[in-house]
């Protein structure tokens, strides 16, 4: 058992820490496996070769085959990752076109074009296969970079310019619509913002904008950009928030909020004004079913949703009622592993694009 166990642990190590040297470590584990095979088989064959030839025919062959299978297990690693499976991994670190510097927010439009904002303040547009299409920059990044991006009902791109306390609005080609900008003033009054996190627009043109800082809340703006109501507040009571990091409209027409630092999902009825809390689930932890800093989520079109956890560095699938269905991903740098992911979106073909932030890439999943 010893050689196999040793190689198992070696493989596990490689899985956790492979970066640029990943290739070497994988090779290393294979070599370990080869050695374990030789270690087991060579002495055995010597012993067998000394046995009377008539007796060894079958036993010998079986023993060799058994040992080979046993040693061949070297390099195997139990996998906790069930479905969904990785369909595509793309993106590299860098500042040139098509590369990322810690991408922090992702959105997808009806044509399955992905809009990704990173720590250089660029909004880059890709097709669903990861082919670069175009990019533009936010006006200023000295004070900080955007952490949220969304697509409006008319296809306009909504960028949460977090540290400038505003929501920027662009056309899909990247032309800014200054008259549509929401906020820009720091404060806790109506229409003022702390750190803007995300926004979502309803079919009737109303915008819901999340923020954190001094006043963790969601403000509602009418199509003319006037603040009409708000809900929330800093705290961990139901209906309050601690960093409402992601806002999305659910299949039920309700407003779903990833309440990141309270490690939960909150659901609001937006028919009411101000929005009224109608559901809440999630508790902090690392076990299946628990959440650790849920930064984003996406509905799977099959009565569930996938939650992207920044803290647990995984994607977890839930029913809309919060029942856990499965976990995908673990900390690491290999395909299928995540490093502090920030975002997830689902395209029209229900493929999920996960923003693997500290690996500077996108992983596409299929259920």
């Amino acid at each position, binding site marked *: 058992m010893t050689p196999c166990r040793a190689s198992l642990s070696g493989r596990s190590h490689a899985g956790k820490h492979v970066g640029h040297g990943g290739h070497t470590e994988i*090779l290393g584990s294979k*070599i370990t496996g*080869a*050695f374990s*095979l*030789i270690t087991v*088989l*060579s002495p055995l*064959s*010597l012993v*067998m*070769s000394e046995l009377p*030839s008539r007796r*060894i*025919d079958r036993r*010998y062959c079986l023993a*060799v085959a058994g040992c080979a299978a046993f040693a061949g297990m070297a390099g195997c690693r139990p996998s906790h990752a069930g479905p969904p499976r990785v369909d595509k991994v793309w993106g590299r*670190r*860098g*500042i*040139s076109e098509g*590369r990322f510097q810690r991408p922090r927010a992702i959105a997808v439009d009806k044509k399955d074009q992905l809009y990704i904002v990173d720590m*250089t303040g660029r909004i880059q547009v890709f097709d669903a296969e990861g082919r670069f299409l175009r990019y533009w920059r936010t006006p200023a990044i000295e*004070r*900080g*970079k955007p952490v949220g991006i969304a697509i409006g009902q008319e296809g306009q791109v909504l960028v949460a310019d977090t*540290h400038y*306390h505003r929501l920027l609005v662009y056309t899909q080609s990247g032309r800014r619509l200054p008259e549509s900008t929401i906020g820009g003033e*720091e404060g806790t009054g109506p229409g003022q913002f*702390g*750190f803007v996190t995300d926004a979502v627009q309803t079919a009737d043109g109303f915008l819901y904008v999340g923020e*954190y*800082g*001094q006043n*963790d809340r969601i403000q509602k703006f009418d199509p003319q950009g006037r603040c009409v109501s708000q809900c929330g507040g*800093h*705290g*961990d009571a139901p209906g309050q928030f*601690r*960093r409402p990091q992601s806002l999305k409209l659910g299949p039920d027409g309700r407003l779903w909020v990833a309440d*990141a*630092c309270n490690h939960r999902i909150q659901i609001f009825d937006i028919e009411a004004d101000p929005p009224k809390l109608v559901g809440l689930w999630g508790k902090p932890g690392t076990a299946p079913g628990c959440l*650790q*800093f849920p930064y984003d989520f996406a509905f799977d079109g099959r009565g569930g949703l996938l939650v992207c*956890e*920044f*803290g*647990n*560095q995984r994607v977890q699938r839930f029913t809309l009622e919060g029942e856990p269905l499965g976990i995908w991903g673990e*900390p690491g740098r290999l395909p299928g592993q995540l*490093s*502090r992911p920030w975002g997830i979106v689902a395209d029209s073909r229900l493929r999920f694009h996960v923003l693997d932030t*500290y690996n500077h890439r996108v992983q596409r999943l299929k259920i």
Partner: protein
Amino acid sequence: MHWGNWHISFVHPAYLIVAAVLIPVIWLVSFRSLAGLGPVRRVLALTLRSLLVLLFAVALAEIQWVEKSDRVTVIYVLDQSESIPPAKRRLMLEYVVRQVRRHRNARQRDRAGVVVFGRQAVVEVPPFDDDLPPTTQVESTLGETDATNLAAALKLASALFPEDTARRIVLVTDGNENLGQVREIAPSLARNGIGIDVVPVKLTTRAEVAVENVILPSRMRRQQKFRGRIVLSNYTDDDKAEPVRGVVRVTRSSGGREEPVGEDVPVELKPGKTVLTFEHEIDSPGIYTYKATFVPENAEDDLMPQNNVATAFTHVQGKGRVLLIEDHMHPGEFDFLVDRLRAMNLEVDTMSTSTLFASLAELQAYDVVILANVPRSSGDDETSVAAFSDAQIQMLANNTAQLGAGLIMLGGDRSFGAGGWANTELEKVMPVDFQIKNAKIKAVGALVMVMHASEMAQGNFWQKVVAREALKTLGPLDYCGILHWSDFGRDSWLWRPGLARVGTRRKTMIRALARMTPGDMPAFEPSMRMALAEFRKNKASIKHMIIISDGDPSAPPRALVQRFAQDGIKITTVAIGAHGVTGTKTLQDIAQITGGNYYRVRNAKALPRIYQREARRVTRPVVKDLANIPPRLVLSHPIVSGIRDDFPPLQGMVLTTVKENPLVEVILRSPDPSDNRNNAILAAWTYNNGRAVAFTTDAGYRWANAWTSWPHYDQLFSQMVRWAMRPAEDDEAFDVATTVRDGKVRVTITALDTENQYTNFLGLTGAAIGPDQKPFSFPIRQVAPGRYEGEFTAREAGSYHITIGGRGPGKPPLIVGANVPYSSEYKDRTSNVELLKELAALRPQGGQAGKVIGDDLTPAKLESLVKANPFRRDLPRAVTMHEAWPWFLFVAGLLFFADVAVRRIAIRRETWQRWIEPIRKRLRRRTEAVEVEAKLQRLQKRKEQLADDLSRKKAATRFEPDTIPTEELDEVAPPVAAAASKQKPDSGATFDEPEESYTDRLRRAKEQARRKLKRNDAEEDAE
């Protein structure tokens, strides 16, 4: 063997001989002995055994796959020193960005990086396979740029190269190095295959005035008139140029005070050198620095202001002077002591920590320095924080150790270990250590630091600097913990247990810090909860926490913060690069609720001072309250000479640890604590050339209130000062002169005794402290009767303090100074193109020599410079070795079984057939089924035809059989017979072989004979 970019090599090819020898031997020896295996098995067994030996031999020879890479890495080394105009320094960045964008081969994944340098070199962009971010200014903290250190820059660049690429450095500089020796390091780069391209930066010819030097006698007596000279140079290439007009201003400074020497002197400087003189005299002893400044009338006449100032200093020996340094946050605390010392005829100056000395020369005015309850850093917010820099602490230590001045440290709640002086150079000079190394004494603090990644430039670097500084300040019994957002996606302690005793782990902790990468912490709450839990388990008497952040993590619940306040744990928050009010409010609230300090830092350089100041809070436990008990006199010493053992009681002291050195004299001890290692009140020793005194209680302000009315107060402190004071000079006439020329300082000593006779054969020794505060020695030898000379190279501009020792037993060292006015950086007016050509001409091993790209970096020439391709493939390709021998060993291991199996397992033919037959059948069924069907049909048809013929011919039979040649029969029979024999086993088709009747054979023979006859007739006709 080559396969594209791959080939193989062996580390120990000699092992291949094993195979070459063994394989023939195996065949020779085993061929006969294996005869019993049969021919096929024998050859197979021998082949396998030979292959096995070959594979083992190849594995032993350590076979490697060798990969040659086409990738190129270019590191740009940009000179950012001040000799190059700022506009050109910015242009360098544009040049680099454009050139990389144009020439980098993205498909080959070429890499580009940038190193910038002045006095030091730093990495601006590490080599990476992407274009460079467009930028117009250097973002790295470059430090001083008053020197050009080409060698350091090339060294750093060469260390940055990845191994799997060809390597080239593009050096953009004026080539005027004044630190390091690039010629020493460049050949080694070439040997390592690193090519160097050079882009020269030309310095424009321009009007330039420099104050070359101020010349003063290095030592003089009081009220002696002397003449000083100021040398100015007007550099211009045009000899007929108009003179440059301006004024020369001379000032004199001593002990932090600056005063003018006469009026400003108007001058007209013609091209070349001009020498001005001035007369002056000095009334009181000390070190005086004279500064000459040239102020041009028209600023355009003088483009480099840095070289318009030169200084020199001189030393006047006199009676003892005392410098008392006090905390700027507690002014007047030692006024009583100062008054009493002055009353005892000592000259005492006071200095506040907010206006500290800047050079060692300033300290030279004094014979004793008293640190009166002074912490290493003090102040309550960013603007009021004042601290001794490392350089200033080194100056204080050198002032005593090298230059012989006394150093007295007076106690109080902000001194010794309580003042954050632990682990500093100052601690080495004092007779006591500032840390308590005694576990019985409960003087323990606990500090937790929370690190949150900052988006400001080099934020993470500064976090590490501050944590390291704070860690250094803690004592060995103190606890320290660091919380950060780790790679594992949660708040984590940097080491285990979270709050760990510093003890012997200090270096390990500092190493862990260096490896730390603080992440983007989403919320303060988890880390604060972890800290609180750890604090509650810890028994330290003082607990403190520091949070450094840009303020954007989610705010903690108020109740949690209040729990810290309830437990008496103060939290100091430091907002660095904070995002407006929203970010700072959270941090402000945390500090306010817990009673800690809040700092908002705009300049990261202020951070270490803040952390030292804050870390000092947990070192307070070294302060010990005493129950009004008098100290015990335990040693007779000149400091307590004439004082009886009736010292007044004390109410407190700072605990220290007496150094285990026989030179340390402990004079007063406190009865509490009883351990003699930690209860010193008054200790003294001689450290190198100077003396140091530790007085661990205060001088009457709080703990020693009763002492101020004690009749021996004046006597004790005046004797303490006088004992520590630098000894007065004797009457021997030693004349010391220093000259600075060509970067070298020459010291000339003329030694006369009291009768004005030359003193010969003295073993004089020279030591000096340079501007970097590092002491070094230099030799002095006698060159003539009574005349001695020594010399050293002054690589840096600034003051050099020179100590001449070895005059004889009991004689104090002589102290003089020399001043190198300004860095040669500001003297250089033309580029050192020759050096640059030399560097470019170095031929990297296996590649082509570098190129000199263009002749100057100007906006007009930028485009043509960018065209040059530094990513060209003329360098030795990088070779990467991949170990392949384990695979060979693996295959050999597998073959081993085959080898044994061939010898030991004999499989009978029937067994083989039994195994193989079903497979063969299955295969045949698939491929031949159609063909067999067709054949069967053909045979059936033929059978029917033959049966008809047979019945017909039987009816006509009349003759007896005769002999018929067999070859004639074969011509008829074979097709059917062959087909039938082939089909027989498989198809199962059977039928009677058609027998040819006698009549048929006869008729056929008759026809043949007829055909033959016809042929013969035809041949005869033809003839």
